[in-house]
């Protein structure tokens, strides 16, 4: 696979570390039912067959966390953005 890092350009997948579902939201400390919400956030992740938003880290590059839209069936990289930007933007 090749991932086009917004800073470094298109690079081989071996430069990146994979984390998983980019839908992860850390529950705010003051929310209700914290234990249950953290359990869901940490352990229950989306794993679709098809386009999926994932977090990748450019470990052998600029150290950016990237929000990568990848088709898990074909490994096609559909979109890449910085994780600091809100999803979808």
């Amino acid at each position, binding site marked *: *696979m*090749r991932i086009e890092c917004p800073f470094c350009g298109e690079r*081989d*997948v071996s430069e990146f*570390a994979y*984390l998983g579902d980019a839908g*992860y939201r*850390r*529950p705010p*400390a003051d929310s209700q039912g*914290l*234990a249950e919400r*953290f*359990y869901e956030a*940490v352990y229950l992740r989306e794993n679709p067959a098809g386009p999926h938003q994932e*977090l990748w*880290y450019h*470990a052998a590059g600029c*150290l*950016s*966390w990237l929000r990568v839209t990848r088709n898990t069936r*074909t*490994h*096609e*990289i559909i979109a890449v953005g*910085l*994780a*600091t930007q809100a999803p979808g933007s």
Partner: protein
Amino acid sequence: MSPNRLGEGEGAIRRERILSFTFDGKRYTGHPGDTLASALLAAGVRVVGRSFKYHRPRGILTAGSEEPNALVELRTGARREPNTRATVVELFDGLEALSQNRWPSLLVDFGAINSLLSPIFIAGFYYKTFMWPAAFWEKVYEPAIRRAAGLGRASLEADPDTYEKAHAFCDLLVVGGGPAGLAAALAAGRAGARVILCDEDFLLGGRLNGDRHEIDGKGGGHWARQIAEELASLPEVRVMTRITVFGAYDGNTFGALERVADHLPVPAAHQPRQRLWKIVARRTVLAAGALERPIVFGGNDRPGVMLASAVRTYVNRFRVTPGRRTAVFTTCDDGWKTVFDLLDARVDVPVVVDARREIPAALANEASRRGLRVMLGAQILDAHGAKGVGAIDVRDERGRTLRIAADALAVAGGWSPNAALSTHLGGRPQWSDAIHAHVPGDLPRGMIAVGGAAGDFSLAGALRAGAAAGLEAARAAGFEAPAQSPPRVDDEAVGCAPLWFVAGARGKAFVDPQHDVTIKDVAVATREGFQSAELLKRYTTLGMGTDQGKTSALNGHALVAALTGRAPSDLGTIASRPPYTPVAIGALAGMHRGAAFKPCRLTPSHRWAQSRGATFVDLGEWRRAKAFPLEGERDWKRTLVREVRGVRTGVGVCDVSTLGKIDVQGPDAGIFLDRVYANVMSSLPVGKARYGIMLREDGIVFDDGTVAHLAPGHFLLSTTSAHAVKVLQHLEHARQVLWPELDVQLASVTEQWAQFAVAGPRSRALLERLLRGAVDVSNAAFPYVACAEFQWQGRPARLFRISFSGELAYELAVPSTWGDATVRAIMTAGEDLGVVPYGMEALGTMRIEKGHLAGAELNGTTTAHDLGLGRMMSVQKDYIGRVLAGRPGLCAPDRPALIGVKPSRLDAKITAGAHFLRIGARPSLANDEGFVSSVTFSPTLGHWIGLGLLSGGPKRIGERVRAHDPLSGGDVEVEVEVVNPVFYDPDGKRLRD
């Protein structure tokens, strides 16, 4: 002597040079341009190997990498390589080859008796014959089968050659250097595109070398060389031969293996034997041609039976004929090219058997003009001859059988596109009724198949489609590419009727000759219900092995289809996976072997440590000084005791630069650290350091280290050596993904700073002399956990009063390039204080004496409570891991928690990894109470001590338990006393003085 070499004539060999080689110890000769196969055929060698199960004599079937039979061991000694295909081995002077699977010799083979036992070697025999009794499998069956049915022997010596890796990028990758590939490369190359063309052969041209064609009035081979010359003159075009594109991978990435020196006796100095390429291409033209199919009939494996296109290649390119009386069996127009090429080479063709009842008039007229014996609507039932074909039985269109003498037989069963690369990413080929074969289906993005690979078997079609694909690729890459008129070629007939096998053969009819799978085997598998392509392969082994069924799979599927009343297309296809042809492990490893297997990071004081006679240990990627034995100090324990006592009673120095160092800056740095550490960091005053623990979000301890507050908004973290990279990744995730609103920046400075622990009661005296007032190190000015940044000898330096050893200690940091000078300066300053260098052994021993944690305790399963650090978990703030660390299972009182152990009998040794059992309890999983994580001989206490994780933890201090170790041979079981994990100075007085 070369009885089968044809007289003078064109071809691609250089007759003026003679190359000498041996096969099974016998000497032969050939010419540059020969393959081992063509040279053996020229010499009249027919039997080149024995088959896998029945040890039947086998000859050469093909002229390419799809060869199932002619596998030989090449070279000798450390360079011996099994299963090389004689059909692609380029002849060199002095080549040595051995046949495989024969004992005691190729022509007299003991294992041939297996042929008589063939009923037990029937399909599925692995699953049926050897099922009972179970013990027989290991002791009797397997060794016997391994001896009888091997595919060559690997050399057991280390490979003396080197292998390297290379990367390339291009606008267009052309796979295959035949007419379609050359046309594609030329069209794109002329437009200025970056083109890489790869061909597995050592000669460009593909079928143009094996067939007789005219292009623009010139011979096909001549045209190919002319195009090759033009391509070589184009600066953006790279043409590579002897290279196989073996795999298509995600992101338009391709793997290719270049055989740099396989055609030489040994690689030249500094030359690799092979080079593994990773090629990234915007577009790919798959021009890998097609593979000819056999027709399955009785005795079709006999030496002398050869694919018709291979016969043409040997005749036209190598000027060799497989026999002097060569019959032809065809079901398509293409087989007739072989007939006329043989006749023009003055080889006798006793009969042409065409299974079709009607053939194009042009062929029939030419046959009658030449006075050929042609049998239409006929089939060959059996080939006869013990050591090679001597005669064939033909059944004519009215069902009569007659025997005809022939010493070779060319078989033309039609062509199948060679489209393996189109399926590596999951594409499924589609059946074509026009060519009775699969054509590429949904291709990977950016790939287009042309010519034979697309099922277009005419030369005109290949040239046209190749050029069009090349133009398209160039335009897609932004180049102006005017269309050019295609070269002139003659029309040719490419008609084909399907004939997969001949019913009614008397002899064994082989569907897969490499694995000795016969028509009968396929019939058995079909009867037993193994009727899909994938099941058939596993049950019969059809299509396994080095050739992966390139010349056999489709015939096998057609056979199953016929037996079950279906069409071949109904069976589906076997997904072809990389590699297309075998790739040696050495090539995949490349330079990463031996000392270069992984990177080795040296500490700033490495040279100095070497000069002191240090021994070293590799920890992760770091190579660290293990100990500094004095001359004559042969016992590791003596060195350890001396180094530890030196620190505890005087002063020692140790390189601790490998600890991860992360620089944290910004107005929100304190808030950020509070969120990533379990304890509070924002309250840390400037000039102080604090021990901290980080949790993972699931509540498990991730790492520990110190945080130093160097200046307002500027912190420096230390991490364990092992987790330096992971911690930075974790912190970057927190900064970029979790809390992008915080104004904070991170940078790894591990490599930028050399850091030395100066430890022991005399460390202050040493530093006073060394630093000469650059910083006041008195206890009042620089108490325990103080830190400072200052200038020392005109360079920045940092001092931390922290201690891993448990003694009064400092860590001095200087820019890495000054590390070597600094450690030498420390030694000089401490010379009359008796300063001792100490290594990882002493460091580890002193940390266990102090009950400090390391990787064995921070092992990814322990909580802060387990490690006795529960009180560090802040209740005033939110931080990563806070919520889930509170899960009931992670707070259970019986969880294994940190304790110290010492043997009840003080002369006993404890082993790390031993499991705790209550005294009297049987060793079992149910009785398991935890384990010993770290052990050392304590020079300070004079006996072995250990840290461990014991159910119930510190509540059990004073109890005696057993440490059970069934794995270490000797000390199987030791009674130990549970004690405080801080063995030495539990109040920490020595740190603070």
